[in-house]
């Protein structure tokens, strides 16, 4: 399989190259990360409902809408992306697309475990460590291909992610940040020092070779670069970004598989906040409720390293 080990590239290239492969009908694996941050919408996200545009504009965060599913994500150089494009007539592609996730996410799970994190798959497509989500993933039919995307989180800006999403009010935003922090984790939470990205990429590539066969390293050729350039204009164009998408009467934000923070109406007419988790809904009078609930995983220290975490292997 063709393998594009692109390291740090322009933010728009981190989406446009795999879309380009798909539209060209070319199979391949891409590993990369953006050199500057951006916000990425899923195919069916509604920009006006999901994103605080003025927040993004003030911070110079560009927007792009991808053709795969999933929700709004903040993406920056503290993540490593792995993107697999397969032709739809490839016999290795299962009829039920979600079934490939286990194979597709295995390399990333191995990388986390290599550094001592007890990572595992939470079906259909979350990687979790100690119950907390440590990756994002999505897939979709693009052109005559199917694209699968995932990432490894070195670190994550929870302030920024909770800030860019449009929410009913400051209490909801505060709860959002707390719930995200409680249900997500990154390498920075577990390791005293982050491994070099090149080492993580090499480990990922080795994992993909194991799962999908030998990789042939390539550089983006003129055809691929031209198609990616064409797609940049489309995927960042105003009419595409402003496509009408999924709208809900009340705000509902997915944090992880089976975990949602929701705006909830009371019979009195007032709005409240509820956390839906594992099929159970809990109304939150404020975010302190989240800390009082013994069921929740412990909050990791924001932005700091856990002193008792295992050291990275050489």
């Amino acid at each position: 399989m063709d393998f594009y080990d692109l390291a740090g590239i322009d933010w728009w290239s981190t989406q446009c190259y795999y879309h380009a492969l798909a539209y060209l009908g070319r199979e391949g694996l891409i590993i990369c990360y953006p050199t500057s941050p951006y916000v990425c919408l899923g195919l069916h996200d509604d920009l006006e409902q999901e994103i605080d545009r003025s927040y993004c504009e003030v911070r110079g965060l560009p927007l792009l809408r991808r053709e795969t599913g999933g929700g709004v994500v903040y993406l920056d150089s503290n993540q490593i992306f792995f993107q697999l494009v397969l032709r739809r007539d490839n016999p290795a592609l299962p009829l039920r697309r979600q079934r490939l996730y286990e194979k597709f996410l295995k390399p990333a799970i191995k990388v986390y475990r290599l550094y001592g994190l007890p990572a595992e798959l939470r079906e259909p497509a979350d990687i979790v460590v100690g119950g907390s989500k440590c990756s994002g993933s999505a897939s979709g039919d693009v052109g005559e291909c199917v694209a699968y995307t995932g990432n490894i989180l070195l670190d994550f800006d929870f302030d920024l992610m909770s800030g860019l999403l449009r929410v009913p009010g400051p209490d909801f935003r505060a709860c959002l940040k707390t719930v995200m922090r409680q249900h997500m984790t990154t390498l920075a939470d577990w390791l005293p020092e982050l491994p070099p990205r090149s080492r993580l990429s090499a480990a990922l590539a080795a994992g993909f070779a194991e799962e999908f066969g030998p990789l042939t390293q390539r550089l983006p050729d003129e055809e691929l670069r031209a198609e990616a350039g064409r797609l940049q204009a489309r995927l960042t164009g105003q009419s595409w970004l402003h496509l009408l998408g999924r709208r809900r009467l009340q705000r509902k934000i997915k944090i992880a598989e089976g975990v949602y923070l929701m705006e909830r109406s009371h019979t009195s007419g007032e709005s409240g906040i509820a956390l839906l988790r594992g099929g159970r809904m809990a109304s939150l009078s404020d975010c302190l409720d989240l800390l009082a609930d013994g069921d929740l995983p412990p909050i990791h220290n924001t932005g700091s390293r856990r002193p008792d975490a295992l050291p990275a292997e050489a």
Partner: protein
Amino acid sequence: MQLDKWLVPEDLHYDRKDYWVQPAAGEVVIGLTAYGQSVAGDVLYLELPPVGTLVRRGEVSGSIESGKWVGGLAPPVSGMVVEVNSDLEADPAGVNQDPYGAGWLIKVKLTDLSELDDLLSPGAYREWIEEQIRREREEAAVL
């Protein structure tokens, strides 16, 4: 997984992308079959072509999102969309819960009646499902 799990009504036509088609005086109603909605997964959102759209057989004119996948909706016949199931906007799960009833997708005024001849009979569609079930068993052994 067994064939008899998947209802295949005798009064409909089908295609290999798991759509059902119900003709009615120059128009057809289109939906996803029981087997098709199972393959798609729990439907979270549908982008259906608006009324007035000219759709072409096999060409993507809408999209469906389920779980962690997004795919195109490609009608099995060509024509103009005359009605869209707007109930699915609020409750896309209707596709999964009642694929042959409340989960219908669009109504199309046909531009080429002969395309109906290319669709599968219930018997032929059952054979198609059996092929897919065999394929899924082989996939499960590999994955």
